[in-house]
């Protein structure tokens, strides 16, 4: 198998997330590289993440504002947004990371890029900041569908 850049791996995850959101919630999602013109400033207050063990270990994350999380999890579960509790959001965002990652894992199985999953986790709060070592390779995608805005990141750690 020819080598795959981290940008291509990010596209694999972003495309799979788009597919999951279309299937589970009926959203038509578009994806651009972060930092491109037209990408709005968002201040994520909830983040789902997972560490991947492979030839290179990586962390992937999905970050979004509360209103996106409420909308997304409401569509995914069929529970009205006003009936969702905070724990439902954390569980839902963690599960979304799990689902998105599962298919990418299957696609990369038996290649040099295969990886093992770990348990997803979710973070909530204001001014969330994730700190890695300096100069690590990473890639970022901004996904939108109407008012829904999600930032996907992958970083080799």
């Amino acid at each position, binding site marked *: 198998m020819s080598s795959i850049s981290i940008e291509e791996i990010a596209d694999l995850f972003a495309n799979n997330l788009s597919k999951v959101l279309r299937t589970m919630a009926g959203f038509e999602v578009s994806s651009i590289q972060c930092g491109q013109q037209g990408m709005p400033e968002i201040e994520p207050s909830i983040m789902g993440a997972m*560490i991947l063990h492979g030839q290179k270990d990586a962390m992937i994350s999905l970050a979004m504002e509360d209103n996106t999380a409420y909308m997304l999890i409401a569509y995914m579960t069929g529970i009205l947004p006003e009936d969702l509790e905070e724990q439902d959001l954390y569980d839902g965002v963690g599960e979304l990371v799990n689902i998105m990652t599962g298919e990418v894992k299957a696609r990369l199985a038996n290649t040099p890029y295969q990886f093992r999953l770990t348990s997803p986790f979710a973070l909530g709060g204001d*001014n*969330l900041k994730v700190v890695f070592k300096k100069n690590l390779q990473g890639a970022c995608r901004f996904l939108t569908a109407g008012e829904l805005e999600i930032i996907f990141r992958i970083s080799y*750690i």
Partner: protein
Amino acid sequence: MDKKFYQPFCRSTKDIIKEMAGIEIEGMESMEEEEGEISSMGVSSIITFAGTRKGRLLVDMELGLALYLANTILGEAYTDAMDRMVLSTVSEINNIVSGNAITSLNNSYSMDLRLAPPVVFTGQDMVISIPKINSLSSQGYTEYGKISINVAWEGGNK
């Protein structure tokens, strides 16, 4: 999972922090089942390990303790706990604590565990939620602030 797979992380946290920064952690003698989400005290670092089983260690501490550890270990005088070097110190402490604990587990139980690099999180009123996995927590106290660890193994606590 037997508590013997959790206790090395308590011992290692106390030993490493004493060795690196010369401070005693009071408490952290026992571990209690953690239910639901964990409210961060300021800075959190998570590290995962995988071998015959998969697990992770979450180290959480108050900002004052993070600052004291960084200043003592690095010999600097940081005043902002959000400084990258302070956060990196917390990350490195987690790495060393976990390395020490999993070496003990590998030697005793041939678990073939390997660490992934740690990641540090900060945020205002940050909450950490780890669905579908049971975990045990232990609290410790120092004169510079509180510290807690949370250990989880996939497959549960039994």
